[in-house]
């Protein structure tokens, strides 16, 4: 992933625009790159943008929960936005919706 386009820093908030498929290798690379950014900047919240993402497996759940722990497990420290139906199901099934704020993809509406 290209660090410049995919990672957006705004004050203490870091937005990550995720690629089409969030699996084990992608989760590893997002974790490494965000660790590096968090080492150089004070980050309080991380927003994962799933706008361009159609697939995710349990590696993505590990990534989200890992970042939640790294940011001190505070309410609202990790957000998932623009999630589609499949990813919403995965987030619900794994129970991470209890810790992470989730915003559905607007175009898709209610299912």
């Amino acid at each position, binding site marked *: 992933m290209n660090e410049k386009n995919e990672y957006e820093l705004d004050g203490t908030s870091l937005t990550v625009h995720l690629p089409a498929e969030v*699996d*084990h290798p992608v*989760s590893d690379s997002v974790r490494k790159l965000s660790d590096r950014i968090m080492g150089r900047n004070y980050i309080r919240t991380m927003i994962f943008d799933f706008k361009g993402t159609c*697939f995710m497996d349990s590696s993505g759940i590990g*990534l989200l929960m890992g970042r939640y722990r790294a940011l001190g497990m505070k309410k609202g420290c990790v957000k998932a936005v623009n999630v589609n139906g499949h990813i919403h199901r995965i987030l619900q*099934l794994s129970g991470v919706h209890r810790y992470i704020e989730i915003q559905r993809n607007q175009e898709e509406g209610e299912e």
Partner: protein
Amino acid sequence: MEHTNEMTLIFDSRPVNEGLARVTAASFLTQLNPTLEEVADVKTAVSEAVTNCIIHGYEGEVHKIRMDLKLAGGDLFVDITDHGTGIADVKKAMEPLYTTKPDKDRSGMGFTFMEAFMDEITVESAPGKGTCVRMKKTIRR
């Protein structure tokens, strides 16, 4: 006679091949005219099983993973096999949130997703011999 179709994919246990395995399974499955949701279910289950082979079965070493796919009637059968470390306690390994690698940000949800997204799953494993995950999904049309 019932129409069947079979294929086998053997590949190196490199993370980059996880995408290859799930796209292959999804592509093979299209013959049954599945819904988008059914395709996503199968892709997720395949991804979980193959990731387990790479991370846990071979622990990062590069060896072969075998994926057998079979279509019979309206059913898809997926068998994913490694010859790695194996699992001593399969029941424990399948518990939600159980992981032997929490430091690597593993969620412990792999088997839970396979069970949730497929209709049947059985796991055969022996320490030092390897693991075979057999899954079945009925495509409802």
